[in-house]
């Protein structure tokens, strides 16, 4: 059997050694690629006694089987490791151009272990993979580092870079690509920093990937591209970016405000929404490799306290995290905070959410001026956020910087009292900017069941609950009411499988929205020769989901960790969902039942694991039980 995928390079930074190997075709087929295959490699090769920043820890980058195919949204890249923020297995996804660059070099992925003695970078071209000195980049921000890499390695060089936050191992440090695209979530940048690895640079001559049925792939691309382009969601994304429907989300109670104390504010709905961004600061749209949607924002703020040069603009999550969540309607401040946070190399969601939590703690008197070192944390004080807090967090400066650099859950535990109750997180990962109380109760279940912590892209629930996709071939046709629990556990089953398929395929969840199940199956088969039918593909999605849950169990997580904080579940105070309660426990119990999961361990029972081919995991978790 042959799967049309590339070999994996292993880089032992401690020993300075590089080797490469093939992953068996059946392993690719069973785990798809990207985050699914990363979970398999992590389970087989990681030392589970090593914490996230231990030199023994693994840091994995993996392509999906479609990388390099000239199809919109088909070339994202996955990074995976044990998260320093949560302690759980985590994966993070990044768009841009690195995935094809890796494939051009004949690689399907990179697995790092060890710690380099001095600041290093990995350089990849067609002929070699070399560990090189990165002293010239150390201590520098993302934008300067990226420019220096271009100057040294040429215009073709594509890079993944960490900033000061990664170097200082801030547990929510991200990895930036071309100073625009981010592996934002779960602290992959801190893991890179712990390895003294400042950058990964790929500069191989472009070539078409070897595909199982290149002619059929070309036909599929030809069929799908106009549909992707014409889809109304793609047009909104292109015109207004991912914040394009922020105003609509706000009216439906989906956008958290002031640390989730509210979810409606008409002024912010208008001032922060995507069309306002387009009318005020947008200079042009940006894109990822081969993508016809082009949803990325390039912005410039000409004047005022938050003036910013032309460059990467904010996504929806960042607009809400540095806007409504902090009680600020100021879109220029969002643009500036986005650039500063990205340059320092921190996840904008966790950074914004942690600051929002601190502002509420300050308002309540749980965090005093003495503890903040005299920094006043009033709502919407964006000067303080941008000039003081973000740099102090990235440097882990003693006092407020070091406290907030822990992330909201650890910081709340550090100050004690009831401060943990008004964080908005699951398993230590701050929730994204969709409030289940207004956006849809299924989101609450999705956040809790996501193996990496509160996340709306680990599963397809966000799209399925809002009616943006239907999968009649596997039993899902949109008919859900947002503000009830009805049908949500049933939907979550398929959503979990579909999310795992998308993230393992490294597909963009915007661009693939109109794909039908038979089309996704055909893409896998035509590009990589996987030989799937719909059932086999969906089964692979379930396999990946359950494997990740098993890994987390073996790392110490149980069903008790599938919980949301009181703040996320208490009836909302404003807007439409005011007073409506989420029946979270009922949804969770039903989901466990449907998925044949144990309500204490939080993993699938032995028979289900064995049926999915997860024999080792069944033996480890359910010894002696068939």
């Amino acid at each position, binding site marked *: 059997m042959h799967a049309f995928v590339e070999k994996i390079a292993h880089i032992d930074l401690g020993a300075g050694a590089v080797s490469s190997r093939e992953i068996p075709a059946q392993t690719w087929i069973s785990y798809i690629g990207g985050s699914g295959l990363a979970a398999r490699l992590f389970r087989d090769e990681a030392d589970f006694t090593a914490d996230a920043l231990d030199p023994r820890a693994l840091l994995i980058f993996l392509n999906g089987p479609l990388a390099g195919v000239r199809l919109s949204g088909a070339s994202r890249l996955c990074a995976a490791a044990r998260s320093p923020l949560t302690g759980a297995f985590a994966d993070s996804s990044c768009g841009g151009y690195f995935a094809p660059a890796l494939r051009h070099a004949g690689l399907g992925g990179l697995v790092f272990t060890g710690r380099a003695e001095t600041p290093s970078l990995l350089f990849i071209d067609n002929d070699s993979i070399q560990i090189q000195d990165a002293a010239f980049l150390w201590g520098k921000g993302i934008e300067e580092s990226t420019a220096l890499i271009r100057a040294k390695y040429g215009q073709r060089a594509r890079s993944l870079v960490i900033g000061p936050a990664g170097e200082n191992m801030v547990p929510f440090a991200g990895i930036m690509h071309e100073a625009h695209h981010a592996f934002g979530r779960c602290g992959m940048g801190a893991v890179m920093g712990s390895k003294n690895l400042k950058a990964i640079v790929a500069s191989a001559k472009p070539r078409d990937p070897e595909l199982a049925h290149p002619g059929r792939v070309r036909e599929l691309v030809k069929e799908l591209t106009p549909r992707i382009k014409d889809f109304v*969601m793609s047009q909104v994304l292109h015109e207004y970016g991912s914040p*394009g*429907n922020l105003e609509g989300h706000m009216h439906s109670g989906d956008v958290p405000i002031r640390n989730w104390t509210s979810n409606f504010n008409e002024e912010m*709905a208008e001032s922060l929404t995507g*069309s306002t961004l387009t009318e005020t600061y947008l200079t042009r749209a940006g894109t990822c490799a081969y993508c016809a949607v082009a949803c990325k924002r390039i912005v410039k703020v000409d004047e005022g306290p938050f003036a910013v040069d032309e460059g990467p603009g904010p996504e929806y999550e960042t607009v809400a995290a540095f806007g409504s969540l902090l009680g600020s309607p100021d879109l220029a401040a969002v643009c500036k905070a986005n650039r500063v946070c990205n340059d320092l190399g921190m996840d904008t969601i966790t950074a914004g959410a942690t600051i929002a939590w601190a502002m509420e703690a300050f308002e309540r008197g749980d965090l005093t001026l003495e503890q903040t070192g005299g920094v006043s944390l009033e709502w919407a004080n964006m000067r303080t956020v941008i000039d003081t807090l973000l740099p102090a967090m990235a440097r882990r400066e003693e006092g407020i910087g070091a406290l907030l650099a822990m992330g909201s859950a650890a910081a709340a535990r550090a100050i004690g009292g009831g401060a943990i109750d008004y964080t908005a997180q699951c398993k230590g990962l701050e929730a994204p900017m969709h409030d289940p109380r207004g956006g849809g109760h299924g989101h609450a279940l999705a956040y809790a069941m996501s193996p990496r912590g509160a996340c709306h892209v680990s599963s397809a629930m966000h799209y399925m609950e*809002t009616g943006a996709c239907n999968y009649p071939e596997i039993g899902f046709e949109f008919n859900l009411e*947002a503000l009830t629990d009805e049908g949500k556990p049933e939907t979550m089953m398929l959503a979990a499988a579909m999310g795992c398929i998308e993230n393992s395929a490294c597909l963009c969840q915007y661009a693939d929205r109109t794909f039908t199940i038979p089309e996704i199956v055909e893409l896998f088969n035509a590009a990589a020769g996987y030989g799937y039918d719909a059932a086999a593909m969906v089964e692979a999605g379930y396999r990946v989901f359950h494997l990740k849950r098993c890994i987390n169990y073996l790392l110490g997580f149980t069903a008790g960790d599938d919980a949301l904080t009181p703040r996320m579940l208490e009836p909302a105070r404003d807007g439409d969902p005011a007073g409506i309660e989420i029946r979270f426990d009922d949804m969770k119990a039903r989901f466990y039942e449907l998925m044949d999961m144990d309500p204490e361990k939080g993993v699938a029972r032995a028979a289900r694991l064995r049926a999915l081919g997860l024999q080792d995991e069944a033996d480890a978790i359910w010894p002696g039980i068939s």
Partner: protein
Amino acid sequence: MRVKGAGPLRAHVPESELVLPAGSTLDALVARFSIPSEHPVVAMVDGKRSSLKNQLRDGSHVVLVTLLPGG
């Protein structure tokens, strides 16, 4: 009654005051505008989600929202 479109529906539903025949439903209101059919439209009536089958009340403030996800 007052009506407006939010987010991507701004372009299709300009803010306006309308007089509709008594007993008109939200569905009839939505049909007055050329909203592309792919938009899953939800009506917020005086700040509350309302079924499109519901009848409009005098003096209501209606915001039409698409559930188009994103972000």
